[in-house]
């Protein structure tokens, strides 16, 4: 049945409708693939019984000709989305065993679209990381391996489980969340399409918060069309999220054939620093060439505050996180470590329940918000953030989309010793768009000499995911990228 796991969402959708196979068969094929690939550690929780139940329900609907837009499509859900009655951990010990009595808006929308949840996907603890090595449930392995040497690679992060599972055909697509690159960077590391829509497109309700002003959900899929299908099902106005946009959801799939003829594509010089990885640089040039050949106009642009995006992010995101994670105190849910007083219980619970990276960010966030430092760090960062936003606004007066590399390198080794700041630099190309709240996507465009995938990033202005998808489709068409087959 491995043939079934090779299908794209679009293909499976039409073949299910034609009843060439059942939703249950499609789900079973993925469940057995998951079983065979447990060494990747992509899933924290597998929900096989629930999946079979939902697949059967889908088959009933399909039989009755009442299939919904994604009826019977098996997906993985990042374990940051609260799922009713199914353990939701955020990959943290502090939430181990937590069973939410509610369903996140995004996962509910996917259910309402007919999808089948296969399980909850591994991630960096509280989505804090770029390699999926901070999970309390162990690191995720990238299904891609380098040619010519033996090494286990990271899948990127924080949506590492989502990317690994999608790349290894352990689901047809997966939800991710992106705070500073957590969808786009793992998509690049695993040869996938990852889309972070405009901040406000997808409801944050029921998604365990990392940094509220940055967090956005989005799809990770094996091609652009699948991402368009999935994003349409995920987004839309939600009155339960005050930052949700009350705007109509465009039919992203409908624009895919429109090409890029006449579009102006911006190439920001600040994304080509001295010492940029030569393979990444070459692939970027290749991408520029493809778009030009497809009829786009290439425009050199400047985003002058780019280099300050990462330090800005490392004030804003930890500040918000330090406050968002205060609720993990052992009182109402999650881990509790007894203490001789209330404060002692808090301190022991949080010291035991949080991993090193989470603690690091809580400490930074607490520091930058504390008395005497607020103006120097937090307010300063919010001002620089405004300047980064202004850079993009000015650029989008001249261009329709921006093309950059997604990440400064291909996937690296799980056991590579990488210092904290070098790790943070993984997000150097993805963070500016997060700060500006604009949509961004990574498309697999080529390989390193070791045969590892590399992605290119497309950015557009707020609410213009349609142009984003047009450019992504054009790149995909030109690249002819071949992903991994089923393991």
């Amino acid at each position, binding site marked *: 049945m491995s043939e079934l796991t090779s299908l794209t969402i679009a293909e499976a959708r039409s073949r299910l409708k034609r009843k060439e196979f059942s939703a249950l068969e499609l789900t079973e094929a993925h469940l057995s693939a998951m079983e065979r690939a447990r060494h990747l550690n992509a899933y924290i929780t597998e929900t096989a019984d629930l999946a079979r139940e939902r697949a059967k329900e889908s088959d009933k609907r399909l039989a009755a000709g009442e299939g919904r837009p994604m009826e019977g499509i098996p997906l993985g859900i990042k374990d940051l989305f609260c799922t009713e009655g199914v353990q939701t951990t955020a990959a943290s010990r502090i939430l181990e065993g937590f069973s939410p009595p509610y369903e*996140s808006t995004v996962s509910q929308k996917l259910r309402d679209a007919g999808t089948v949840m296969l399980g909850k996907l591994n991630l960096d603890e509280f989505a804090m990381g770029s390699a999926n090595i901070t999970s309390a449930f162990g690191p995720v392995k990238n299904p891609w391996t380098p040619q010519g040497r033996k090494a286990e690679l990271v899948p990127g992060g924080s949506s590492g489980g989502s990317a690994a599972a999608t790349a290894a055909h352990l689901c047809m697509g997966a939800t991710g969340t992106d705070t500073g690159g957590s969808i786009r960077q793992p998509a690049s590391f695993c040869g996938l399409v990852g889309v972070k829509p405009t901040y406000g497109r997808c409801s*944050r309700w029921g998604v365990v918060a990392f940094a509220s002003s940055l967090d956005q959900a989005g799809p990770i899929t094996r091609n652009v069309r699948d991402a368009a299908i999935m994003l349409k099902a995920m987004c839309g106005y939600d*009155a339960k999220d005050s930052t949700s946009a009350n705007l109509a959801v465009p039919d992203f799939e409908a624009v895919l054939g429109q090409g890029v003829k006449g579009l102006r594509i911006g190439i920001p010089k600040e994304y080509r620093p001295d010492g940029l990885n030569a393979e990444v640089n070459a692939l970027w040039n290749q991408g520029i060439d493809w778009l030009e050949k497809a009829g786009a106009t290439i425009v050199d642009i400047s985003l002058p505050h780019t280099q300050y995006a990462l330090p800005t992010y490392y004030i804003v995101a930890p*500040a918000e996180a*330090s406050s968002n994670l*205060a609720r993990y105190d052992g009182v109402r849910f999650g881990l509790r470590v007894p203490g001789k007083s209330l404060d002692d219980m808090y301190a022991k619970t949080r010291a035991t329940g949080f991993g090193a990276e989470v603690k690091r960010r809580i400490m930074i966030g607490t520091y930058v918000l504390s008395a005497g430092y*607020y103006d120097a760090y937090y307010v300063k960062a919010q001002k620089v953030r405004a300047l980064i936003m202004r850079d993009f606004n000015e650029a989008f007066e001249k261009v329709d989309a921006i093309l950059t590399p997604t990440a400064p390198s291909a996937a690296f080794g799980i056991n590579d010793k990488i210092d904290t700041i070098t790790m943070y630099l993984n997000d150097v190309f993805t963070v500016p768009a997060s700060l500006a709240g604009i949509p961004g996507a990574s498309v697999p465009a080529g390989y390193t000499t070791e045969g590892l995938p590399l992605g290119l990033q497309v950015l557009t202005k707020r609410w213009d995911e349609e142009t984003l998808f047009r450019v992504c489709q054009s790149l995909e068409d030109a690249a002819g990228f071949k992903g991994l087959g089923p393991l």
Partner: protein
Amino acid sequence: MSYIIKGQTGDWEVVIGLEVHAQVTTKAKLFSGAPTDFGAGPNTQVSFIDAGMPGMLPVLNAFAVEQAVKTGLGLKAKINRRSVFARKNYFYADLPQGYQISQYDQPIVGEGTIILDMPEGSRNIGIERLHLEQDAGKLVHDMHATKSFVDLNRAGVALMEIVSKPDLRSPEEAGAYLRKLRAILRYLGTCDGNMEEGSMRCDANVSVRPVGSTELRTRCEIKNVNSVRFVMMAIDHEAKRHVEVYESGGAIQQETRLYDSARNETRSMRSKEMAHDYRYFPDPDLLPVELDEAFVADLEKNLPELPDDKKARFQKAYGLTAYDADVLVSEKENALYFEDVAKGRDPKQAANWVISNLFGVLNKQGVGILESPVSAKNLGRLIDLIADSTISGRQAKEAFEAMVESGKDTDTIIAEKGLKQITDTGPIEAAIDQIMAANADKVEQYRSGKEQLMGWFVGQVMKATQGKANPALCGDLLKKKLAQ
């Protein structure tokens, strides 16, 4: 009668600023759809948002915003068309999110004024600001030997924090401020002002300084005092403590203190003195609150008449004294009652009946005007019967007492007690004739100039008619007959 503390080194005055937390009258909480009713079972009025569950997000209650703006307008305050919710971060068992959503440097309401009517004249007390924030939950410490219990029913209930400027100079002024603020909130319908149920709570910032000085010395904050009287007592106690400390060469530490009403003393809350650093920052789950001009203008246009305006109107339209008007407008329901009674009647007489007679009874019974045993309609009828001479003032008092006792209506009581006054000249003349015949000597003395006997004659007539004779009529007839 200003408030001066006589110290050994000289006279001291007190400087007081009050922070009032008023529960906004709403059906649902500030950021969730859970109810706000008082006295429900533990944790039954809690949504996943109020419990700070992972992934939950706040959505602002539009009516709470309206209520805050209305209150601001009632305090003649500046309405900030753009305000921002911020997180106040600290850990406590009654604070499920680990932060309180409040407003910090951009509150919804800015500076305003409350006018106090003090015996020595009116005083303008400045309002510094009013902001919206969430209440915390409740902790119960006496249910278990080693555990405290947490009830989140109150967590997330909308509060207005109303901060005065340090303009108050005596416990009496502080008391008057609280009563006036409470009246304004109740007139507006934005807070029920119930201090016992905790829907209005007060923190007092107290410092002292030598009379004549304009410095602001170190203040202490007295937390959560739950009645106007206790606020006044706590301030008085705290001010005297400061004077004692200064005069014995000590210094006052800025700190939070708790008032113990049983012992009438304040004491330091050392347990809460752990270095506070609230790390305020704008709540990224919420966007700024932007009010459009028309919204504010519309609320302003539809603002009810407030105590100050009502008082002025009562003085002007009804000719009441400032004191009487003030007493009548202190509670919205009292003013309504009075206006019902005064309608179409002599307003001064109406005011007199309401203030001197009715309020005395209500005070004695410990009930409010809404539970009054005598309705406005019945009191009005009583006044009508005096006006048309059906009953005398004395009879009216008798009837009123019976009405209070029985709750029966005016006419029933008058009939039952046979309280109708005799206004017919026939029976009165007959009584006069009889008395004059039986007391020829007194008639002679009167006629020879001892006119002070008139009172005695009136008394005799009253006695003969069991007090029912109209006294004025009685006097007229006596005068006529004795002159013959």
